[in-house]
């Protein structure tokens, strides 16, 4: 049953470029798909560990820049008169490096912030994103600053024995994004249903109890941060090679907010949540474009978000699942019986 639904959804998604010929819509679907991957990565942290990364776009942006610079090459002066010269590598190497570097950044951010719980992680991630944005803006020799990195090559898939396939058309990029999204989805699904996912859930629900049965908080949360950041980095790389131009605006706070909205509306802590939320908020601009100026659209997003959460408070997927699939009793715990009343009747 589950497998059938999955196959059906994947087949439907895969069929889209075959009947959707409008390049504008296909373009919207591709960028939406890239942001859906970003939202899925955010959900791994927010939904499955309860940690809010309010600078999540940093990992996405780092992935974009790392991938772009790897494939464009650079020649920069470092302190001490050293010059760092890098000849262009194939974009696919950039993609892999983007995952690696973003993951490493996730590791350090996690290491910095997970010794203390609560708002600390939120603050560290926001600051991190801002610092990275300033670097991208001011290290002009490397990043071109506000002038943007341009002419980023499209991803080319090496085909052993034949050569390589450069993904130039929208249809090709659509399938690339779809495959990456499916892999990310599967990876997150496997992770959260494993031993590691249970440790994350345990920590989120009752940290004291979780550590008392041997769950290592710092390690578990850091692991989630690394994987989340790495996936966000992959999405960033896709973005860079698809749009083929990036500037420091990619690090804008509003981009993180967009991802958070996607996760919350679709339902944090559910695998499909960020996909549904991502599709809605990714495609909403397309629907609103004829009727609203881009600035005014944010008001509409707010309205849609509020409407969704008003009707489905836990987000679309979890609320619907609760309503239609598995009605749980949800009865609250009984009040504790007064201590003095118990056991007294028990013979010694």
């Amino acid at each position, binding site marked *: 049953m589950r497998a059938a639904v999955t196959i059906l959804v994947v087949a439907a998604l895969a069929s889209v470029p075959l009947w959707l010929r409008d390049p504008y819509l296909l373009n919207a679907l591709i960028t939406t798909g890239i942001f859906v991957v970003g939202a899925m990565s955010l959900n791994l942290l927010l939904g499955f560990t309860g940690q809010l990364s309010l600078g999540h776009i940093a990992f996405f942006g780092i992935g974009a820049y790392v991938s772009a610079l790897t494939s464009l090459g650079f020649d920069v002066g470092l302190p001490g008169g050293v010059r760092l010269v890098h000849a262009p590598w194939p974009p696919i190497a950039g993609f892999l490096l983007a995952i690696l570097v973003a993951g490493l950044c996730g590791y350090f951010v996690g290491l910095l912030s997970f010794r203390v719980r609560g708002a600390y992680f939120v603050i560290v991630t926001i600051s991190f994103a801002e610092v990275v944005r300033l670097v991208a803006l001011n290290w002009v020799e490397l990043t071109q600053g506000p002038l943007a990195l341009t002419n980023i090559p499209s991803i080319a898939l090496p085909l052993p024995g034949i050569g390589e396939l450069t993904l130039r058309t929208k249809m090709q990029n659509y399938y690339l994004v779809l495959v990456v999204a499916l892999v990310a989805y599967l*990876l997150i699904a*496997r*992770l959260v249903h*494993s*031993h*590691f996912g*249970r*440790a994350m*859930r*345990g920590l989120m*629900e*009752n940290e*004291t*109890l*979780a*550590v*008392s*049965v*041997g*769950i*290592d*908080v710092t390690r578990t949360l850091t*692991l989630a941060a690394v994987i989340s950041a790495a996936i966000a980095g992959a999405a960033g790389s896709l973005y860079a090679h698809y749009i083929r131009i990036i500037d420091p605006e990619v690090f804008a706070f509003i981009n993180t907010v967009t991802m958070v909205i996607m996760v919350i509306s679709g339902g944090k802590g559910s695998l499909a949540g960020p996909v549904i939320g991502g599709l809605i908020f990714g495609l909403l601009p397309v629907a609103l474009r004829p009727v609203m100026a881009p600035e005014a659209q944010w008001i509409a997003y707010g309205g849609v978000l509020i409407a969704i959460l008003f009707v489905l408070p836990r987000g679309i997927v979890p609320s619907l699942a609760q309503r239609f699939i598995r009605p*749980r*009793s*949800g*009865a*609250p*715990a*009984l*009040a*504790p*019986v007064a*201590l*003095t009343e*118990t*056991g*007294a*009747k*028990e*013979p*010694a």
Partner: protein
Amino acid sequence: MTARSIAMNIEQVAVRFGGLVAISDMSFTVGEGEIVSLIGPNGAGKTTAFNVMTGFLTPSAGQVTYQGTTLTGLKPHEIADLGLIRTFQRTGVFPNDTVYDNLLIGLHRQGRVRLLDAILGLPGARASERRLRQRASELIEWVGLERRAHDAAGSLSYGEQRLVGVALALAAEPSMLLLDEPVSGMNASETHRFVELIRSIRDRGITILLVEHDMPMVMTVSDRIVVLNYGRIIAEGTPDVIRNDPAVIEAYLGHGAGRA
């Protein structure tokens, strides 16, 4: 008392919260395979003692050693890895998960697999997963919660939640178990069953330190009792000795009768 090897050694532990002395100069030992109860009126410092033993609190003075390892500076999860596992007076379960999933989380220590194995679903990880599921079912059966296995733990009655808490602790494969008021909120028959449960836990070779207000139960089950009052040990001995100890009677009467 027969000579046993010492499982836990509490040496001159003191805990202060600002000006409040929660525990002062506490020293006692628990032998391997023994059932020792730590009793005392409300606020005596029993839970605080548990918090020190399991790494949730650092003592202001003194130290605890468990099976030869000094616990000072270890984090709770590291202490759990030594096989020293506790239950909680209040927050005992993962409320939004089913009882079954609660136990799977509790089996963390048994389920460690490599990340890549888990993500790729390699045979080793699958076999481990099967073992965990099997074990979770066994534990649920063992505490008699089969009918509740697929209900959210937070929806269970208070007494049932306590059982889940104990099953969770057992899932972590303790060599020593610290139980903080396990039968509070249980009715007489539940308590009776629980005593049987404690005995069978001990029969598996697990050392038990019990904090409990239910005196009849404590007297029935304990090999030895340590009595705490205002953070000090005021008596220590077998149930018969404690029952007739004037200082103990005084401490309990001083806090209002009815408990002892």
